[in-house]
């Protein structure tokens, strides 16, 4: 008896839908390229032009450095105030949006929905609205950043609060603590480090956004960049981009360092 005579019953070969997905994705992409009318010819022609274009950024012009640094200061201050506003709002709303702390389920849903709402509105749209409402300047930017990131901070805080050990909450509840006492003694002390890390992360993010809020007139270094590019002052634009890049890298590094120390 040889092997060929044994009836081998193999399990059915699993279907592999991967090629189908790839094909669908390619068709979609092809349709998008056709629909948006993107011609790769111009892109290919542009490669040599592109090299020439970027060489124009070769000599950064720092002659107006003091003005740029002032704008940078405004940008950082906007980010700081935005983070502070976000922290205050998030701090107050998070306990209501945490399932184990909220006084009533309906409050849970309302606060969650509120946080989602502020997160879903882009900060530049908020900045546009605030600029139109209270005038040009960094105050509008700080408010926009604050309201937008309050949604993030509130959500992060609430999720950390939900992960607190049950024993801690029960221990405090057993002393007859009411809602604010629960939050202040069982809630925040347990997540202090995590919360600080989140605040730093949000500050980091806010600095990046504050650098571009100037585009809609909400103060800071973004407007200067916009103006220099409009006037084709590539030397000044290069200086501004370098300043923004350096600031972001420094703050990125600092916040990563502090967050590492916290954990």
């Amino acid at each position: 008896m040889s092997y060929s005579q044994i009836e081998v019953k193999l399990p059915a070969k699993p279907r592999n839908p991967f090629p189908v997905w790839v094909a669908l994705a390619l068709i979609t992409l092809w349709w998008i390229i056709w629909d948006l009318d993107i011609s790769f010819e111009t892109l290919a022609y542009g490669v040599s032009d592109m090299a020439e274009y970027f060489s124009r950024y070769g000599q950064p012009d720092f002659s107006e450095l003091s003005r740029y640094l002032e704008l940078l200061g405004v940008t950082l201050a906007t980010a700081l105030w935005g983070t502070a506003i976000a922290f205050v709002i998030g701090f107050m709303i998070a306990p209501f949006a945490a399932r184990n702390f909220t006084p009533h389920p309906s409050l849970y849903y309302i606060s969650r929905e509120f946080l989602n709402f502020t997160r879903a509105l882009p900060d530049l749209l908020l900045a546009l609205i605030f600029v139109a409402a209270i005038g040009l300047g960094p105050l509008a930017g700080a408010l926009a950043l604050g309201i937008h990131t309050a949604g993030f901070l509130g959500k992060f805080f609430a999720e950390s609060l939900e992960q607190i050990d049950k024993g801690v909450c029960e221990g405090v509840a057993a002393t007859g603590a009411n809602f604010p006492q629960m939050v202040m003694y069982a809630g925040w002390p347990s997540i202090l480090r995590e919360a600080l890390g989140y605040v730093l992360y949000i500050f980091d993010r806010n600095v990046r956004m504050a650098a571009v809020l100037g585009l809609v007139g909400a103060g800071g270094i973004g407007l200067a960049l916009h103006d220099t590019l409009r006037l084709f002052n590539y030397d000044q634009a290069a200086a501004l981009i370098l300043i923004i890049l350096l600031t972001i890298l420094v703050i990125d590094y600092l916040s990563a360092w502090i967050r590492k120390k916290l954990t």
Partner: protein
Amino acid sequence: MKVFMLRWPTRNGLPPFGFVALLVIALLSLILTAPLVEIELERLGQSLGNFSEFIVNFMVWPNFDYLPTLGVKLLETLQMSLLATAIAIVISLPLGFLAARNATCHPVVYRITRDALSLMRSLPELVWALVFVSAVGLGPLPGIMALAFVTVGFMGKFFAEAIETIDPKAVEGVEAHGASWMQVRLFAMFPQAFPNLAGTMIYVLDHNVRAATILGIVGAGGIGYDMVMSMRLFQYDRLILIALSIYLIVTVLDRLSDYLRNRIIHGAKQ
């Protein structure tokens, strides 16, 4: 008022030194920077009045004639983010391997790729959009380029981290068969990292849709341009529709990406 008479759970009932120091530093820097942000009590009161006056403008009936144009613009926004994400995936996959400590070909390449990726993601999309608009002109193309550029920075880093956390046993097993350098990466590392990668892709797509909604502010395509224009021309009946549609799209996408990522990372049961 019992809430405010907190006794701290320390020996003397006072807050710990580190906490007080942090609070003082934060408050001091806030007060010192207040003039830069033009925060003055007088002005705040005035702006509150202005704001309540302004918000009345939004109590208008939406202009539904605008809906078809809005649909086209929203579709363009979604298309831009999809295309940018696809381009970024193609570019960042190889970069991710080079930037992963266990898959790179040389430590120097690892360092360079890491630094290049962090440089790419350090500037916000809008700055790149500004630069690319002045390079290739108005339209969705500079927007796509800016999105893809920044996204490569993010995705390359996430990919590298996903590859670094794989189980080395499978790699050893495949290596023991005499697999080549490329085969080890393709058949031992990639399949293990794939669920994580797919989760990242969805997250990045979500991020890109958010970013694409505002790129139009600098003329890089999408709904952002209409948003700025209707604000400048005081067409609140349009603006309210735009804001609502952005809110809807972002919310739906947020939920969808949460759901999909849970499914991919934790399996279909959850």
